């Protein structure tokens, strides 16, 4: 049944090729994907997990299976993110009549690739789906992008190809070192990697996956790419496809725990680069789309912070908060950035400019657009009640989870403190942009701007609804992570074998008391 998620968009592509109305087909396909996705998540939440996955063998030596299924709660959440953003993306933006087929086919292929990567239960297809999704992404930028689209498409291609190659090398090394004959996660994660191989593999994975997630200093492809790409592609890539790298790190780190811990300080330095360095770059942006693109790079730093807390703990004690925090924030960020890119596209359509110096006072003319954009902007700077806050606060808690009074601040705690300053930075650029776009007297370019039509509102309202629901009830998502059948984290949560061995921990007892209530 999970395979339907992949079949629906592919059937859609075939239908468009056969001459069906491209827009309507894409909308129908994404609706079906959304319905299937929600149904699957519902079944998962109810504990019905058998018969949802398939794994036909496509190659016997080594054994590669086309494994499609819901591996654990993280897969379910990322799958939901894909279908939610795809649903909105198919209803955003517009193009010339003659490009409609290309536009919608690309969109469906990107969506299919993204969802395919997250529902793969086999390393080979996990990698392959992501690569396949990148091809239409480049095409769309190169053909239908804005500005210097060719150069930008090349830049993105080179960066992402570099990341992919490094990643590929890491994965091959990993496979070789594990000595496994099956590439299914289930089998792969049972193997153990020799200690001497771990740091090398971990480094390749961090650089490879990191480049795909625009980890500092491999980030400069991201903002121009998102600014140039057609809106649905920006939404899908920044919102969903980019999370592939984080998902991969979270998925594979248990294989090389010591290797990851070895690079903890590197990861911390790079994530601080994302938050502070890119944060300052973002402050200095003069165009709304570049500002948003950079802000999305900056926010990756928070997810890497959760990852840092996770790999720090990997060596010593269990950190039960880090993983859910990272997943929740990935989901929240994906929805938020998709909403922001979608609405930015509308601003450009209405006013003809995204230059912050020419905009202003838009809220008087387009109150609905201003409200929705304001909501997304507030979500992205962590307003409680919207999904991002829940993720961020859990990331910070994860950062201090391992700290005990009496010992000095560790590197993860220092990174957490710096990341908290990032909240000030992101408030500076986001409020400044909102102020210049929507508030104050009316700017020179907005004389005839019309408010959003109900068709244009629909995708944004849908995403806003998701943000509010998850923000108010984060347990709706976090619940999917609980008692996952095949999850790697589950056994250690029940009883951590390391804990009794630790010296009496002054923090643990009251904490237990709190938990008991």
């Amino acid at each position, binding site marked *: 049944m999970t395979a339907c998620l992949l079949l629906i968009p592919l059937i859609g592509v075939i239908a468009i090729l056969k001459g069906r109305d491209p827009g309507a087909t894409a909308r129908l396909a994404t609706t079906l994907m959304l319905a299937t996705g929600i149904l699957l998540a519902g079944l998962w939440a109810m504990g019905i997990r058998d018969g949802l996955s398939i794994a036909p063998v496509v190659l016997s030596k*080594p054994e590669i299976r086309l494994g499609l299924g819901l591996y654990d709660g993280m897969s379910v959440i990322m799958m939901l993110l894909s279908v939610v953003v795809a649903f909105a993306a198919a209803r955003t933006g517009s193009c010339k009549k003659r490009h409609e087929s290309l536009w919608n086919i690309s969109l469906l292929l990107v969506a299919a690739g993204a969802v395919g990567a997250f529902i793969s239960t086999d390393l080979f297809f996990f*990698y*392959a789906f992501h*690569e*396949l999704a990148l*091809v239409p992404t*480049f*095409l769309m930028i190169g*053909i239908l992008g804005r500005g210097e689209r*060719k*150069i930008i*498409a*090349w*830049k993105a*291609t*080179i960066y992402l190809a570099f990341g992919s190659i490094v990643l*590929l090398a890491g994965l091959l090394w990993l*496979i*070789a070192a594990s000595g496994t004959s099956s590439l299914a996660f289930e089998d792969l994660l049972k193997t153990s990697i020799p200690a001497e191989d771990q740091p090398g593999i971990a480094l390749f994975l961090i650089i490879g996956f990191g480049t795909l997630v625009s980890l500092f200093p491999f*980030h400069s492809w991201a903002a121009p790419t998102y600014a140039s790409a057609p809106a649905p592609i920006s939404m899908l890539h920044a919102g969903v496809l980019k999370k592939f790298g984080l998902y991969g790190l979270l998925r594979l780190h248990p294989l090389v725990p010591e290797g990851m811990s070895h690079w903890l300080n590197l990861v911390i330095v790079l994530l601080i680069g994302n938050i502070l360095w890119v944060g*300052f*770059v973002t402050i200095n*942006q003069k165009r709304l789309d570049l500002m948003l693109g950079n802000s999305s790079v900056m926010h990756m730093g928070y997810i890497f912070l959760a990852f840092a807390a996770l790999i720090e703990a990997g060596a010593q004690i269990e950190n*039960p908060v880090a993983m859910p925090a990272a997943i929740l924030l990935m989901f929240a960020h994906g929805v938020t950035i998709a909403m922001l890119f979608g609405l930015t596209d509308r601003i450009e359509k209405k006013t003809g400019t995204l230059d912050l110096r020419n905009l202003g006072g838009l809220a008087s003319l387009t109150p609905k657009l201003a409200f929705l954009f304001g909501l997304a902007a*507030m979500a992205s700077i*962590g*307003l*409680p*009640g919207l999904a991002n*806050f829940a993720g961020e*606060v*859990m990331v*910070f*808690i994860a950062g*201090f*989870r391992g*700290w005990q*009074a*009496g010992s000095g601040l560790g590197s993860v705690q220092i990174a957490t403190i710096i990341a*908290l300053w990032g*909240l000030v930075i992101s*408030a500076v650029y986001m409020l400044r942009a909102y*102020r210049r776009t*929507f*508030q*104050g007297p009316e700017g020179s370019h907005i004389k005839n701007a019309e408010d959003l039509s109900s068709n244009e509102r629909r995708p944004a309202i849908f995403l806003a609804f998701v943000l509010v629901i998850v923000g108010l009830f*984060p*347990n709706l998502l*976090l619940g999917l*992570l609980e008692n996952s059948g095949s999850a790697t*984290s589950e056994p250690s*949560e029940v009883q951590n074998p390391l804990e009794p061995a630790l010296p009496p921990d*002054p923090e*643990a*007892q*009251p*904490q237990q008391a*709190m*938990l008991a*209530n």
Partner: protein
Amino acid sequence: MPELLSWSILLLPLCSAAVIQLLLREMAGIAVRMSVASVATTFVIALVLLGSEDRTLAVQWATAGSFHIEIGLIIDDLSRGMMIVVTGVGLLVHLFSLAYMKEDEARARYFAGLSIFMFSMTGIVLASNFIMMFIFWELVGFSSYLLIGHWFQKNSAAEAAKKAFLVNRIGDFGFMIGILMLWGILGTFAFREMSESTTVIAQSSSMLTGIAVLLVFCGALGKSAQVPLHVWLPDAMEGPTPVSALIHAATMVAAGVYMLFRLQLSAGIEIFEGFAGTTIAWVGGITSLLAALMATQQDDIKRVLAYSTLSQLGYMVMAVGLAGEHSAEAGMFHLYTHAWFKALLFLGSGAVIYACHHEQNIWKMGGLFQRMRKTTVTFAIGTAALMAIYPLSGFWSKEQILEAAHHDQPVLFWLAIIVATLTPFYMTRLFIVAFLGKGRGHGAQTAKEVPPLMLYPLFALSCMAVIAGFTPVAETLSPAFHHPSHSFSLTNPVFLISLAALIIGIGSGILVYRGRDSDPLEGSAIFKIFRNKFYFDEVYLVLVRIFQNAVAIVVHFLDDFIIGNLIVGGLVRTASGVGNLFRKLQSGNLQGYAFLFGAGIILIIYLTVFAR
């Protein structure tokens, strides 16, 4: 049943805000009624809860394995009393706004904002743990942003709203670190469980605890506008005046004091002893002095009141920081009396501004006593309460703070006495210039008494400004505000000194400002510094230019030219050169390369894996 009531006091305003925003934006009439009905209901619930027993309710909000964050309500003397203040002042401000905002086209949005604020403030008051308090802490900041920026078409209002949000974020930066550190030290976020961890504090270093408390105090620094993060509050006066009364005088700005008191109550006074408490007390004392000095030279009626709010908040913070036996209760008591009389003063100024056709400069007012007698009388009562004239409410609470300071920190006591001289001085100035003499501007000459809907809230608040300090009233509303051991006698040196301060303040105010048409102190150099608010804003502007904008420009440059252009750009140029070459050879295009790229990668993986 009490559980349901407790939850509904929190959730009713949220529902009201959501319904207005989603359904009633075009139907202002219904929206306004809905918002008022919700706040009236919460006030009634707050009254009902006065008789209920202490309890804590909780639901899980976010769960991660064995860890979870709770949303919980703590119902005890402190929160019950505070809820009366919040919903009581809130109700009166809503009623006042009905008349004040009658002409405003966007009043549905305004009332939705008020409802969000009531929700957020209720959340702070009832929060059962620090994470929940932080959630609502951010939300009050957000509602304050919305309401300051209500008239966002004005550049000044939009800037003021942004400034308030950003300055508060800076405070919250420290606040969150403090919360996380206290979590490490006390082992819990929940207030109810903090007392159980006192043994743990004794073991861990008091230095660390002190730092954590000071970091938590950073939150109060922003929200309660203490020096040096006070700069947003005077600018926040750009918002509609009823908002200033509710948020920027009576309730939200007092949240910092409330939070510190809640922490002290939960974790024990011990964690405030030592350098943490001393620092807090001094920050409060200095704020109260600087703000009082700045207030003496403001011409905008709302700004005079705003600086006086800063000054009084400084008093409260000082009292909490003294960490004496009953000093924090004194601060809380002052919070409670101040809420009524300062809301009264702000609504009074709103009435005056309304009557004078949006004139805010006191030098263009004058003679209002003849034209708006009822408003003037209520304003006089508020002024007297703020000056701490016996036996109005302000007297009792201020006297307790002075007592506490006298007992614990004589230097701060004398500093507080200077403030106690300045307060009557600038309030006398305000009252004489705005209400007495003869009208100096067109607005003041044509002013008429405001409609009854604005007067009734003023009457109610005047009533509270008079009686709130009496023991029976304070005890009924909440024992948390008042400790009965306080006895007051005429021979008490503290009383005599503060009486002298009051007389000097009023006397000099009358001497300087009686019958004046412009400020006689304006020319002198030292008062120029007060008028320019000690140049805090100018200094910050320079700091922001250097440390934020300049750094941003440099970093952006480096990012673009080194990481972006030299390293990657070189690669791109090489690649597109190669691409061009291929294009000539194969007349291909980007589509072809993209396809080849994808196919090639797949092929490589396939071959590598297969070859193994």
